[in-house]
């Protein structure tokens, strides 16, 4: 099946720069650039059968087309234009100001909005160049930054904005037929983001300490997402701007050299910490409708509804009071705060957020002569998780052997030992004789904090002197051992690798150069 590919693209750029230093202390840099591009790609493929000799793969050697065979092709073409204006101004290497403006246009965007403007401003202050700090030996570098900017993204295909039709490759008698590709949405607009950033960078004590702190507030407007429809529409979903989301947070990173001796022992530790709070500020009517639908959904999966004032990853389940020791049935709290025995989809409330409070990684490096040890940990604290495997393996087990996954043969031992059996049993899991489906309740929402040693690496680099002496032909030689996912500590117990195999790698490698 030979495929012919054709790609054609071109790009054009014009850049205009203007630099000037006034009165020795004012530096101005301006740049204006204009660019345009066109890219086309086409493929044709033809399948043929009946080649007389196995090594004669040229298309002309084929005997025939396969029955019902036909050539197929793909085509894609897009054009874009963009222009950027940058102005940077520096005063006395102490104060900085940036201004940038951008116009972007692409053929992929809807006809009414092919181009969009974006801009940003930034200010910076190099405190270490100020006279009151300049002479402080402890401070190598200290800088404050502030910026504000807008940006846009448009991750939808052209046919999602405009209603477009495509042709069937199959004919009908001697006619051709077309069909609608998707439900177009002419109201679709760019997803725009406004971001404020405040930052501080410093290097202290002869570059032994390095600290960076950033605060940000990011407002995403006209958030793009798929909105599901009743399938009587003929389509399962369409793209729409669904609302406004704010992400607010802090990012900190630090690195310390505790020991620094190039010939002896060097030890550094570092890490970062991220805290982010996600909040939905506004949702569209279409999404509100979808929420109502999701609210009535039953099943063992929790719902992720989009509600104003909550995080996008909020888990909605029915509040559970646990298992009644007398009967082995689960007791719920309905939305009016009354104890009830039955699970009702409409009693779902926000029960936790599937986002950690803080997360990040920690790393350390220890070097003694030619031996280097690197370890990297990742951690996260205070994340709520719906323990799906626990529900599936202990309570929602099937009583027949005909199920697709044949669950009878793949049970957790707790399905037999830890479920309620006799009145008075104080258990976490419901009555053992109850084979009904366990629906999503807060009983399975758990707070997770975890620490993982994500990679460990030990390397020995042979010194050039040693090599010259013993292995003359070699210029460089390193032997290293590597392991990933060495251990994993978590506050909750759950199975891993039930959907995708869980892997742990160990490797030894030798790198050399002659």
């Amino acid at each position: 099946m030979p495929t012919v590919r054709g790609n054609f693209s071109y790009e054009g750029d014009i850049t205009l720069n203007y630099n000037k230093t006034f009165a020795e202390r004012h530096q101005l840099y301006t740049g204006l650039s204009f660019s345009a591009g066109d890219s086309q790609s086409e493929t044709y493929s033809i399948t043929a059968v009946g080649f007389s000799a196995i090594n004669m793969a040229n298309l002309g050697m084929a005997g025939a087309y396969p029955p019902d065979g036909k050539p197929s092709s793909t085509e894609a073409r897009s054009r874009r234009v963009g222009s950027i204006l940058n102005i940077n101004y520096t005063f006395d290497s102490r104060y900085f100001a940036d201004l940038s403006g951008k116009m972007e246009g692409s053929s992929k965007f809807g006809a009414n909005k092919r181009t969009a403007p974006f801009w940003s401003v930034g200010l910076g202050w190099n405190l270490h160049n100020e006279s009151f700090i300049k002479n402080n030996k402890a401070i190598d570098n200290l800088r404050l930054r502030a910026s504000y900017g807008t940006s846009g993204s448009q991750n939808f295909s052209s046919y999602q904005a405009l209603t477009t039709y495509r042709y069937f490759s199959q004919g009908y008698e001697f006619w051709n037929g077309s069909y609608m590709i998707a439900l177009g949405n002419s109201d679709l607009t760019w997803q725009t983001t406004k971001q404020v950033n405040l930052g501080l960078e410093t290097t202290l004590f002869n570059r032994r300490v390095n600290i960076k702190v950033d605060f940000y507030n990011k407002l995403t407007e006209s958030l793009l997402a798929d909105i599901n429809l009743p399938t009587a529409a003929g389509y399962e979903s369409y793209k729409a701007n669904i609302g406004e989301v704010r992400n607010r947070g802090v990012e900190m990173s630090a690195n310390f050299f505790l020991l620094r001796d190039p010939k002896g022992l060097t030890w550094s530790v570092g890490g970062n910490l991220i805290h982010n709070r996600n909040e939905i500020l506004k949702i569209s009517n279409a999404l509100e409708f979808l929420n109502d639908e999701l609210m009535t959904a039953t099943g063992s999966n929790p719902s992720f509804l989009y509600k104003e004032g909550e995080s996008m990853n909020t888990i909605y389940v029915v509040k559970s009071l646990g298992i009644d020791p007398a009967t082995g049935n689960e007791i719920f709290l309905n939305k009016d705060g009354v104890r009830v025995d039955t699970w009702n989809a409409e009693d779902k409330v926000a029960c936790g957020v599937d986002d950690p409070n803080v997360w990040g990684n920690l790393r350390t490096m220890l070097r003694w002569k030619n031996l280097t040890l690197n370890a990297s940990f990742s951690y996260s604290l205070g994340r709520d998780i719906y323990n799906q495997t626990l529900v599936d393996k202990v309570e929602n087990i099937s009583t027949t052997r005909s199920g697709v996954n044949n669950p009878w043969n793949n049970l957790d031992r707790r399905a037999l030992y830890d479920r309620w059996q006799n009145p008075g049993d104080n258990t976490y899991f419901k009555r053992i004789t109850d084979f009904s489906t366990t629906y999503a309740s807060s009983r399975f929402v758990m707070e997770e904090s975890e620490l993982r040693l994500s990679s460990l690496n030990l390397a020995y680099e042979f010194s050039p002197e040693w090599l010259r002496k013993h292995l003359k032909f070699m210029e460089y030689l390193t032997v290293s051992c590597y392991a990933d996912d060495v251990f994993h500590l978590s506050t909750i117990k759950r199975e891993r690798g039930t959907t995708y195999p869980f892997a742990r790698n160990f490797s030894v490698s030798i790198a050399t150069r002659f």
Partner: protein
Amino acid sequence: MNIMKQIFNIIILTLTLALSACNEWLDINPALEIREEESFSTEQGFQDLLVGAYIRMASSSLYGLNTTVVLPEMITQHWTVRAGTSNELLTSLTGFDYTSSVSKSLLETTWLAYYKTISNLNSLLAHIDEKKALFTDGNYELIKGEAIGLRAFLHLEILRFWSPVTSQINLDDKAIPYVKTVTKDPNELLTRTYREVLDNIINELDQAEALLADDPILTYTNTQLNAPGTLQGSDLTINDFHYFRQVRFNYYAVKAAKARYYLFINNINGIGDTKSLAARYALEVIEAQNSDGSLKFTLGNESEAGYGRLTFPTEHVFAVNNSLATTTLKAAFFEYTTAFTQDKTKLATAYESALHPLDIRYRDQRLWENKTIPLVGDFNYFRKFNDTETTAEADMPLMRLSEMYFIAVECGRPDLFRTFRIARNMDSSIDDTLIDEDAIKERLEKEYRKEFYGEGQMYFFYKRLNYTKFTWPAALSFSWENLLLPLPDSQLLFEI
């Protein structure tokens, strides 16, 4: 700073100018896609969308396989697999299990394909009136009539699948969505009551009937319409879009759909007896004549059957043309791993072969070919849709003349059964047996199976007449709920 300001203004001005000139440059047309405004700028665009609906109907997800051979025929126990093997979908559907993952996915696909076809028609119909001036040769009425009629027909089909047995239908219960617009408003895509759905179907069939009053099928014979070229050069030169009326939703398809409709609503609580209306429309199809007095649709004969054309093309009131039929149907039926076979002795019972040895469908292994496969043994191939082992009939019938006969027989014209019996060359001893309603029902149960094996009509027969037991291939009792298909989850999620 004044100079700076001026420079800045010039820059902004240049950028704005450059970019606005670019808007046109950014407007490119993809080669394999066509924009809405372009699609509706020519008559061709409307034709293509209508044809697109038929092509989707002919695909495997609808009448090319799933809604004829698979879904309804599996539920009515028509298929089995070779002893010692199993097929998950067959096990689910013959056990009336509509919640297994294979059943669910089949129902989802079917539902979506039906409504996707309807969306093609809706988008065409939304634009056709404003572009009326584009059309020539009466194509405005033809295309609009076909599209409205087909929309009603498809909703009736969805309704027949997703409704319970007749006695359980209440006019004010929710049935299925009736979708007439291309819309993103979920409220317009929710289920409507039986009353609303049925009113819409009959209203739209009436509109289609009026619009198709000049259908070429009324002027020309099917033989002429199925042989483009023969009319060219003569006085009868016609528009290319007027050919092949049997594979388009033609004037008689509207009549046949009405006959089906009145039989479907017969005896629904609150509606009463509509048999005379069903018979009236069935007879209009049966008695339809060409200008020379010959019949428009004729019952299949020995030579057609001998050739292997067991769907009897001269009986097709409405069929869909599937150019990939050979690929699909060969794979479905001519493998001994198929889930579409049946036991030899059971088939002999179904076709009453001892009584009717010369039935043109069944004799000489025409419908069922018995073969001995090495290492596998005795095996029955179903060859209704395949002329030979290597070619299938491209036209899959959706409504046939024989069904019109059965409707008439059930609705006050049992005398017509004899005409059908003679055409199929069955034994004359059954001629005078249709003495009362029960006898007619008993005969029709057998005849629907023989005639529509693999075409799916048996399932609707059972639901329509409130059956709670199958007698063939084995006795099986069930409750009415067992024949009721659940709405797919993707729809149900939105239903309050």
